[in-house]
């Protein structure tokens, strides 16, 4: 109990820190710490899948995106400090509004009625028919597969807009290379291990917490490491291959989903007897495509005007 109060307090403290610190760089670092604390909170809420996802995507990838953006924005110190808040009247009003919202929310939380329908029991009953043992993967990829389909489309849209804006102005690609021999040597060992972890995460997704999104996040982290250390990523420069890679995840998901539909059955109902196999195939395609999508969210960011931030020291 004390641990929960402590963790909750730390979470709120970090969140307040993110909003109140003057220096932008410090608030981004605090934001990454907030993401890691959130991962801990998800463990306390008995949601291991979410802890994995939050750590890999929430803190990891979002943190990298923010740091990368920050590096390109090179905030001029003076402006950052002075214009932090709006006029006192508006900030007072906003503060009152926030207090009101907290009060209303807490009142609603305390008074929330007991639900009539109990979904956990229904999920357990239907688990066998879904073809997967792990309830969360069952919900994600068979009961509510439609949500996951649309969610992959959402990421694809984000990447398409990134590509559209990136190439709409002719600017050189962002070289954020960190030239250090230790990194190169270490990667020789790290990359195969990360690949193995990604495949392991994908495989256990069907009976324990893991799955396509967490595995894809590890793949994306691998690609970011390779990009930062300058090791060439196979087929990276070839835009055509990139586009095909982006499309294959959603495409396979749609195709497999409508196999049953074409034969008179139901959309997103996996073929009889082949549920586990088709879910695994879809998860594999999703992992590959999502890994590429998450990486191109990092990659597709427009380049800065001047040379980029980290030029390794005299190594």
């Amino acid at each position: 109990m004390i641990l929960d109060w402590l963790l909750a307090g730390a979470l709120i403290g970090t969140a307040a820190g993110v909003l109140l610190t003057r220096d932008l760089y410090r608030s981004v670092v605090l934001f990454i710490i907030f993401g890691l604390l959130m991962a801990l909170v998800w463990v306390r809420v008995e949601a291991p899948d979410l802890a994995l996802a939050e750590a890999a995507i929430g803190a990891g990838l979002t943190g990298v995106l923010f740091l990368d953006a920050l590096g390109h924005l090179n905030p001029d110190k003076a402006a950052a400090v002075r214009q932090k808040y709006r006029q006192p009247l508006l900030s007072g009003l906003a503060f009152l509004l926030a207090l009101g919202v907290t009060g209303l929310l807490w009142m609603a939380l305390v008074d929330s009625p007991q639900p009539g329908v109990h979904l956990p029991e229904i999920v357990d009953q239907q688990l066998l028919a879904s073809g997967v043992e792990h309830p969360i993967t069952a919900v994600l990829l068979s009961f509510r597969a439609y949500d996951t389909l649309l969610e992959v489309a959402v990421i694809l849209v984000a990447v398409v807009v990134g590509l559209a804006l990136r190439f709409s102005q002719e600017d050189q690609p962002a070289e954020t290379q960190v030239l250090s021999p230790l990194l190169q040597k270490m990667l020789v060992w790290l990359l195969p291990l990360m690949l193995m972890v990604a495949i392991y995460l994908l495989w256990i997704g069907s009976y324990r917490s893991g799955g396509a999104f967490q595995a894809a996040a590890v793949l994306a982290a691998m690609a970011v490491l390779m990009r930062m250390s300058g090791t060439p990523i196979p087929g990276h420069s070839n835009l055509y291959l990139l586009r095909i890679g982006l499309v294959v995840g959603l495409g396979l998901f749609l195709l497999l989903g409508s196999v049953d539909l074409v034969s008179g059955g139901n959309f997103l109902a996996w073929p009889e007897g082949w549920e586990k196999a088709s879910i695994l195939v879809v998860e594999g395609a999703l992992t590959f495509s999502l890994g590429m999508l998450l990486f191109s969210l990092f990659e597709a960011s427009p380049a800065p005007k001047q040379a980029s931030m980290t030029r390794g020291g005299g190594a």
Partner: protein
Amino acid sequence: MLIDLLRSLLILVGAAFFLVGTLGLLRFPDAPTRIHALTKVDNLGLGLIVLGLLPGVASWPVVFKMILIWLLAIAAASLAGHLVVQAWAGSQNKETSSRDS
């Protein structure tokens, strides 16, 4: 009974090492010394905690996973430490060169 005593002792010492590490982080003046304190002491603390947890673990694969986690933590910490200090050194001689010229 003795095992439990030993395990709790190991975990306590590990935690103490973490404390010392953070103390070093706060007290030391500049980046390299802080990084040095952090990476060394915390890795040792983590090692002790892992050692303390090992007997309580049921299946063998989990034991190997725990040790793997520890090794990875050491590799990541030392690599990150090296890069941070390298970037710090880069910015350091940039300042000195701009100040001299």
